[in-house]
Every structure is written in structure tokens, then in C-alpha cells.
């Protein structure tokens, strides 16, 4: 039987703990276990051999800690070669009749990936790729990725394995006691992602004993269509006379694991605290057991880092707002690389109940591939909603699919040969659920039958790539009724027909139906209801629209999906009509307040009252006041008052920030009123802000940004961990006369000095101010900075001084 056949048959026995056994043989605390491959190869081989002789089908090389993040490449190569030789020797010499395999063991690389950590995804992939290439050259039989507690890192390692060898890959993650990965992954989200990427077996190891891991294994069995593995610890570590001992012995350990075999567990071994005795006992306890056959799971599932969404059961809302078509503000944000705007759109949609977010950043003048990948990573840092990657550019799609942490929706393929040839290989390689449009080289068929025929052709083509039916959703295409009175009817007929004949789920972008007509949401929401009633699986729609969201929620309520109408009541009470009634008397007060609103606005900003500041600014503008005037007479004096209070330590940071936010709220009103040509703040002096390379603190920098914006500067915020050349690039592009750099740690001040030097050399017009916890005036001077901001207010003063000095210089 081949290795994979044996895995699928089960029970298949892995090895047990390694570190503890090395310690017993004399490995000292602080000594790297992998170094023993070179210094004590006999001892390492003896442990492998003991496992083979206890019944293990597969042992994993002693290479857990070998990774280019820790060792030089030549050292990695030496240790892996020696490790493989130890395992080979054990296999040769072991007195054991079962088939025996050697896995290249790959552990975590020791650094956390972006966005929570510093390591770039592709850099992680490159590191794992080296390990895999070396190991494969040594003749191992498979790759064993283990003990990873971050989904993104697991993804990087699996991708590296798939791209650099043809060997089977087993993937085992380490879960916490809360049943999640350290970075939030759940068994179902992790299994969906790993299977999509082509893992040959998935499962869990380390952290806990078999009983505690059992619920996690059961979730894997529920979700996975590939064999599931388990390698638990020997219970929990306890302290006995200063020694670490584990609290479950071989028999109990084996009994607990054996209980899972009838549920489908077929690959098993041990982790910390287990020894060959445990494997021997495990084999005895499960001998003759036959795990039930693996059933392919026919559910259509998309996943993010830690959440799965199933399509085809309850209708799903896909938020459509991150798409620049017809959205001027978003287009501008994309051109400027303003990620905060996009992230806010995401959060707003999530709060309104979106379950998947469409992400389209295609607009002229941007590098779509780079921008889409960046947007995906930044979105995944703040929202756990699965994403629908929406681009017509296969290169952009691939780049985004690589970094997407989960199993994405892929929007879209269609019946055109060229498109299928470009996209199906990507779906095959990275996993995902493809949205397929029912159009081809001849355009969009006018009939439902025509669209079904294309759907069937697409399915046949997908099958050639081994893409399963459940991973395809069809979009029968919403056409506008204003140009064709039967358009909506044909779409709905096609939807029903495709659903019945192919069994696949369906998606529609519903908004298009009302294009060119007044009060579009009236028509759009009616169409949504009809589509849902025809069996639509997911609607790409605007969840911020009360009418559209109302139609979706009402549909759920009317089809028995809303217990006690709770969701409907919650939604209804949020509607503005009802809120206005509730807030009725307060509106009356507004007129009375009008007279005092000037003083009121100044006071509201000074006191940090955001809602009141916005309301008063609005009322003043409606009363005919000039926006610019309000800024000069009310808002700026209030900010100055607060700023001085802060400088003289009468006002403190949270108070200062609330005032800044209240000012921001008033500015927004003024901006809206003046149609974006706000109060002379647009076209303010450009300032580039960044937290320097190596530093991931950004709270201080964000406060500086807010205050600078208050004072009329046009801030471009490059974020944190920004390399010097990127700062230079922005300063040159904007010809910014001021740049602010932040560093919190002594260890990142050198990066700050480097950035200052680069700016002075290449952008001599730019003056650099620095700030951050470890800096002092003196230190700032030492590293060549032109100014030092002790706090956020001081930074504003320094920037103002720079601008003024520049102007004076210009005048002389």
C-alpha cells in the first residue's frame, strides 16, 4: 500500500515526544535539540528506532527548530541532512515489520507574521521553502508541519511545501484550551483553508491531553474530507519534586484516543511527555479497529482566519461597498493609499450584519495587484469576515489569494476559455469558492436555458482541474430592467434553473437591476426579496441601506429564520423614522440654542462633546454661517485653549483627544456643507508621518496625526514598521516640507537615525521632527533630527514652526 493509502485506511501510528527523551539522554537546558543531530547522532537514531519498534509507521526528523529565521542556510542544511541520516539509520536497523516512513518535521519559524507581527508572508514562505527543498533532497517520504499556532504561518509553510516538492503533506496545529489557535483560528476555518491548499491530512498536536483535545478533533472530523490526525500530550505537566511529569499514563492515554477511532480518527501518536511505551499501548488499544470511511463533505464553505460561513443554507449578505465603481470618495482613498477609509467601510458593513465582504480596488492609476494584497492583509487585521476577492486581473487575484488567510470567495470566473484557463489553476492551487458568471465569448445569453448551458460547461471544465462542484457558485447576472423589461424575470428563471439542475449555490449583485431609475432601492429591495424567494444563496448588496437590509432581514423573519422576530425588532428600532420620534422634543431645543451656538461650539469642542459639536456646526451652517468663519472663530480657539491647557498640564491626554475628535466631527459637517472644499484645510501643508522600521507601536503617531489634521495639515500616514525608502518615496511624491517619525524603543532609534539621514540626503527640503517614548531633545539632536516633539501638542507646534520658518525663508 502507498503512504497515502495507509493514511486513508488507518489506524496509522506516528511517533511520540522527542525533547523529553533527549533530555533524559543528557540534552542540557538551553541546548538546541537539533544540534544533537550533529553531536549525538547515535542517541537521536536510537529514539527513532525505539518508536519504530514500538509500532510507529512514521517518525519525524529531529528538525523542529531548524529554520532560516534561526540558523544560517548552511547550518540548516547540515542539521537537516544529519537528522535525515539518523532517521534512515533507525529505519534500517529497527526490528519492526510494519511499513516505515520518514517525515521531514517542520515547526514554527519563531516570528509572528504580519499584520500582528513583523514577518512578511512571502519571506516566511521562502524560509519554509528552503527547509522543504533540503529535506526533500535528503529523501524523506513526506512533510509534517506541526505545532503551529498561527493560521497565516501554517498557510505559508503549506504553500512552501506544495510549491517545492511533490510529497504528501500532513498538517498539525496547536490549539489553546479555548479551542482556538493563538491567532484565533477554529478547527473548521483551519480545516477549510488547509484542505483548499491541498493538505493530505490535517489535525492537532501538543498543548493538551487526548480528552481535552477530543472536541477539537471531532470538529475536524466534522469539517474535513481528508484524514484527520491527533498527537496529544500525555495530559498536563505537573511538578513532582522539581521535575516535570505528565499526569496521564500510556494506558489511559490510549483509551482516550481509541474512543475517537470509531468517529473517524485514523492517524495518531503522541507529543510532549509521551514515549515509545505510549505508542506501544496505543497500538495495542486500537489494534483491529477500523475507522469508518471518510465521507467527502459537500458543504460550500468560505473561511477567514477564524470564521467560516456556509453558503446554501441561510441567505448570506456580501457587503458591496469596497468597490470604487461610482464611488468618488473611495476612488480618491485608493489613489492616496488611504487604507483607513477602506477599513472603516469594512467595519461599518460588519456592524450592519454583512457576513462576507467584497473587496475590489481596481481603479485607474493604482497598482491593483499590490493594492489588493495590501487591502486583504489590512482588512484581515481588523475584521474576521471572510472576503470575496473581486478583480478581473489574474495576477492581482493570485497575489491576493496567496496572502489571504483562509478560504476566499473568488469573484469571478466565467465561461470564456481565456478566463477559465487563467483562474481555475488558481482555485485549484490556493483553494476557494469560485463565483462563476454565466457569460462567455458570445456575451450573456438572453434566456435562462442559455445561462444554464454555460453553467454546465463551466462545471465540466472545473472538474478537469479537480475542483469540486461544492466550490462553485453561479451568478446568473442581474441586468437592468430599464433597458429590458424582462431582464429581471430571465435572471430569476436562470437562478432557479441553475439551482435545480446543477445543485450549486447562487450569487447575485442585486443593485444593478435598478440602474437608471429613480429611488433605486425601492426596486432593488423588491428584486432582492424575489431572488431570495427563488433560492438565492448570497446577495452582493449594500448593508448600510435600510431598505436593502430591511428586505433581507424581513425575508429571514418571514421564512422562519428569526427566533421571536428578534433580528427584525432590533433592526426596526434602529430605523431613523423611529429614532426621530423618540428624539422628538430634543429637536425643538435646537432653535432655542441657535443663538448661543457659537459659544456653544467652542465650548463643545473644548469639552470634547462630539455629537454636540457636530450638531452645533450643522445648525450654524444651516443658519447661514460661513464654514471658514466657524473654523477660525470657534474651532481653532477651542483647540488652542485645550492645547495650552495640555501644555501646562491642566488638561490630559484623553481630554485632549476627545476635543480633537469633537473638532473633527465639526470639520466633517463643514466639509460636507462646502462639498469637500473644506475651510481651507484641503491643500494644507503636506506632512508625512510614520513609525520607523522595526517598531510596531502606533498609538502616539496616531494621536499626532489627529492633532495635525485638526490644525489643517494634510497628513499622509504611512503606518508602522515603515522602511526608510518608503518614507523618502512619500516625501518626494508629495514634496512634503515636514516629516514626523516615531519610535518607541531604544532598539528602533537606529532605524530612525537612518531614515533622518536618508531624508536629509535625498530630500533636503524636508524637515524632520521625531518623537516617541525613548527620545529626548538631546537624543533627537544626536540623530540629526530638525525638531523634537515631546508630546502630540508639541509636535503640532514644531510643524507650525517649520512651516513659518519656510515661509520666512521664502520671503527673504
Amino acid at each position, binding site marked *: 500500500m502507498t503512504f497515502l493509502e495507509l493514511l486513508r485506511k488507518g489506524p496509522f501510528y506516528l511517533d511520540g515526544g522527542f525533547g523529553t527523551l533527549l533530555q533524559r539522554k543528557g540534552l542540557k*537546558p538551553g541546548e538546541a535539540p537539533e544540534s544533537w543531530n550533529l553531536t549525538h547522532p547515535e542517541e537521536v537514531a536510537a529514539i527513532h528506532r525505539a518508536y519504530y519498534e514500538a509500532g510507529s509507521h512514521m517518525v519525524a526528523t529531529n528538525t523542529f527548530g531548524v529554520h532560516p529565521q534561526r540558523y544560517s542556510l548552511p547550518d540548516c542544511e547540515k542539521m537537516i541532512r544529519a537528522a535525515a541520516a539518523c532517521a534512515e539509520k533507525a529505519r534500517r536497523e529497527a526490528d519492526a515489520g510494519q511499513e516505515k516512513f520518514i517525515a521531514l518535521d517542520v515547526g*514554527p519559524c519563531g516570528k509572528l507574521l504580519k499584520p500582528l507581527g513583523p514577518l512578511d508572508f512571502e519571506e516566511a514562505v521562502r524560509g519554509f521553502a528552503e527547509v522543504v527543498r533540503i529535506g526533500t533532497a535528503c529523501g524523506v517520504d513526506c512533510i509534517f508541519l506541526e505545532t503551529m499556532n498561527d493560521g497565516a504561518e501554517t498557510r505559508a509553510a503549506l504553500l512552501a511545501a506544495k510549491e517545492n516538492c511533490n510529497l504528501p503533506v500532513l498538517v498539525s496545529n496547536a490549539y489553546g484550551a479555548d479551542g482556538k489557535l493563538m491567532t484565533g483560528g477554529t478547527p473548521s476555518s483551519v480545516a477549510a483553508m488547509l484542505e483548499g491548499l491541498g493538505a493530505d491530512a490535517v489535525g492537532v498536536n501538543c498543548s493538551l491531553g487526548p480528552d481535552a483535545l477530543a472536541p477539537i478533533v471531532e470538529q475536524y472530523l466534522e469539517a474535513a474530507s481528508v484524514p484527520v490526525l491527533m498527537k496529544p500530550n500525555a495530559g498536563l505537566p505537573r511538578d513532582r519534586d522539581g521535575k516535570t511529569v505528565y499526569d496521564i499514563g500510556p494506558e489511559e492515554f490510549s483509551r482516550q484516543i481509541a474512543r475517537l477511532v470509531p468517529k473517524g480518527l485514523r492517524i495518531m501518536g503522541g507529543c510532549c511527555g509521551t514515549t515509545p511505551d505510549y505508542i506501544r499501548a496505543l497500538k495495542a488499544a486500537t489494534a483491529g479497529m477500523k475507522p469508518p470511511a471518510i465521507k467527502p463533505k459537500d458543504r460550500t464553505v468560505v473561511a477567514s482566519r477564524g470564521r467560516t460561513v456556509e453558503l446554501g443554507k441561510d441567505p448570506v449578505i456580501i457587503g458591496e461597498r469596497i468597490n470604487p465603481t461610482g464611488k468618488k470618495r473611495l476612488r480618491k482613498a485608493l489613489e492616496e493609499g488611504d487604507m483607513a477609509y477602506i477599513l472603516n467601510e469594512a467595519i461599518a458593513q460588519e456592524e450592519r450584519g454583512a457576513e462576507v465582504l467584497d473587496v475590489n480596488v481596481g481603479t485607474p492609476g493604482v497598482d491593483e495587484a499590490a493594492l489588493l494584497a495590501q487591502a486583504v492583509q489590512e482588512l484581515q*487585521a481588523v475584521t474576521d469576515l471572510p472576503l470575496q476577492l473581486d478583480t478581473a486581473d489574474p495576477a492581482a487575484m493570485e497575489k491576493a489569494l496567496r496572502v489571504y488567510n483562509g478560504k476566499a470567495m473568488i469573484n469571478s470566473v466565467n465561461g470564456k476559455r481565456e478566463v477559465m484557463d487563467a483562474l481555475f489553476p488558481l482555485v485549484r492551487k490556493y483553494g476557494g469558492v469560485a463565483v462563476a458568471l454565466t457569460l462567455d465569448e458570445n456575451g450573456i445569453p438572453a434566456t435562462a436555458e442559455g445561462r444554464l448551458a454555460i453553467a454546465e460547461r463551466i462545471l465540466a471544465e472545473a472538474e478537469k482541474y479537480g475542483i469540486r462542484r461544492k466550490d462553485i457558485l453561479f451568478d446568473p447576472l442581474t441586468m437592468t430592467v430599464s433597458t429590458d423589461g424582462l431582464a429581471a424575470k430571465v435572471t430569476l428563471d436562470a437562478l432557479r434553473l441553475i439551482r435545480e439542475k446543477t445543485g450549486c449555490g447562487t450569487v447575485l449583485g442585486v443593485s444593478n437591476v435598478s440602474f437608471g431609475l429613480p429611488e433605486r432601492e425601492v426596486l432593488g429591495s423588491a428584486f432582492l426579496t424575489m431572488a431570495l424567494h427563488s433560492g438565492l444563496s448570497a446577495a452582493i448588496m449594500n448593508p448600510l441601506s435600510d431598505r436593502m437590509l430591511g428586505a433581507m432581514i424581513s425575508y429571514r423573519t418571514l421564512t422562519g429564520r428569526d427566533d421571536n422576530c428578534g433580528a427584525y425588532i432590533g433592526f426596526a428600532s434602529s430605523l431613523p423614522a423611529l429614532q426621530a420620534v423618540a428624539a422628538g422634543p430634543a429637536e425643538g431645543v435646537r432653535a432655542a440654542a441657535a443663538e448661543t451656538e457659537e459659544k456653544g461650539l467652542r465650548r463643545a469642542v473644548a469639552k470634547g462633546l462630539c455629537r454636540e459639536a457636530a450638531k452645533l456646526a450643522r445648525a450654524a451652517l444651516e443658519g447661514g454661517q460661513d464654514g471658514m468663519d466657524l473654523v477660525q472663530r470657534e474651532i481653532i480657539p477651542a483647540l488652542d485653549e485645550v492645547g495650552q491647557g495640555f501644555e501646562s498640564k491642566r488638561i490630559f491626554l*484623553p481630554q485632549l483627544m476627545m476635543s480633537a475628535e469633537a473638532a473633527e466631527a465639526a470639520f466633517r459637517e463643514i466639509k460636507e456643507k462646502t462639498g469637500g472644499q473644506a475651510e481651507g484645510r484641503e491643500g494644507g501643508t503636506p506632512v508625512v508621518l510614520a513609525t520607523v522600521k522595526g517598531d*510596531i507601536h502606533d498609538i502616539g503617531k496616531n494621536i499626532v496625526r489627529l492633532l495635525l489634521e485638526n490644525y489643517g495639515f494634510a497628513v499622509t500616514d504611512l503606518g508602522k514598521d515603515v522602511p526608510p525608502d518608503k518614507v523618502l518615496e512619500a516625501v518626494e511624491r508629495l514634496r512634503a516640507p515636514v516629516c514626523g517619525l516615531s519610535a518607541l524603543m531604544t532598539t528602533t532609534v537606529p532605524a530612525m537615525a537612518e531614515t533622518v539621514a536618508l531624508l536629509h540626503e535625498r530630500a533636503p527640503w524636508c524637515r524632520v521632527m521625531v518623537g516617541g517614548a525613548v527620545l529626548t531633545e538631546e537624543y533627537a539632536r544626536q540623530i540629526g533630527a530638525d525638531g523634537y516633539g515631546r508630546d502630540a501638542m508639541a509636535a503640532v507646534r514644531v510643524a507650525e514652526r517649520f512651516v513659518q520658518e519656510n515661509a520666512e525663508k521664502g520671503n527673504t
Partner: protein
Amino acid sequence: MKEGLRLEELGEIPFDRKEILRYAMLPSFAEMPEELPLEECLKAAEGAAKCRAVWCRYPLSREGKSLNLGFARTESRDLRKHLEGCGELLLFACTAGAETDRRIARAGLLSPAKGLLMHAIGAQQVEGGCDRLCARLAERFPDRRLTDRYSPGYGDLPLSLQRDVAEALDLGRTLGITLTDSLLMTPSKSVTAIIGLGDRETGGREE
């Protein structure tokens, strides 16, 4: 797991509004801004932090100018002073976890004030975790005198000791804490520290 390491699940740490405002740099005598979104942030932070810790006990000895910490050596005079009279030490790390960082990032996008408060909440949570751990350690060593905690980067104790700490406590594996090249910990709401173990009776000096 490495010999001698002990894991502690510290559970959820109750929010302490006073402490949180202190971490947000609002002194207790100052007026709390009326619209400061503290309650909203507490709600957003709910359930994010489940503090976990790992610790290990080491012998401590003095060799000339240097201090042998059992897992590393240092010439820090401030730590030497801090550990006066102690023959052993406890090294620990505690983290509020990755989800805390994610929620901070998210809040910071919505508004800098919320970002500030979420940072403060995270700090209070991990410090509260350290307090809980220290209370457990004090119970575990009832006959000993435990010093306050002392972290790499305090006084003249170099931050570079973090590498040795991470190695000794196997932080990647035990708590999922990793170090950046500039020695920052991820997740960011994490603490490492040393506690001296001295004799309760004498409290005297060994030097």
C-alpha cells in the same frame, strides 16, 4: 515542553476602570471627559484577553561583577540591587494574547481616542494577569520573600536579555510570544519579568 517550565491559565481579569484611566494617562484628580467612550471600549474588549503565563525557577549566584541568573548572565547593577538577599529567582512571561492586539488595531481605526483606551485596557489586563500570577507564586512559596517584578529594559538591565528570556521560557511554544528583530514582543500586551526569591526570616544580604 522543556523541563521545569510551568504554565498558568490566569483566566479573565476583571476590568479596573481606575487603572485603565491611569494607563490612558488621565490622572485620578482630572475630570473624566463626558463622552470618553470608556464603556463602549470595555464592551469591545470583552472576552478578548485570556491571560496566560509561563514561569521557571532558577538558582541565582554572583560571580565578580556579573550576576548568574541561571538562564543568562548580566552585569546590571540595578538588577543586582533589586535581587539583594535572594539566592534564587523566578522568571516569568505573561500575555493578554493576540486577540487583544487585533481589537486594539480595530478600535484605533475607528477613533484614536478609542485606540488609546483599548491600549490602556490591554495594559491593565496583562498587568492584572501579572498580579494574579504573582499572587499564585506567593502562595506557592509561602516561606520565601518575593521581590517586586523587574523587567528587561528597566534601569540598566538591557532589553537584549529578552532573547535569553524567550529561549529559557520557550515563549513561542508555551505562550505564542515571539520577538521582533528590535526585541519587541508580539502579541504586544505581554510582559516578561524576574522576581527574586529570598529568605523571609533574615531578609539579609548574601553579599
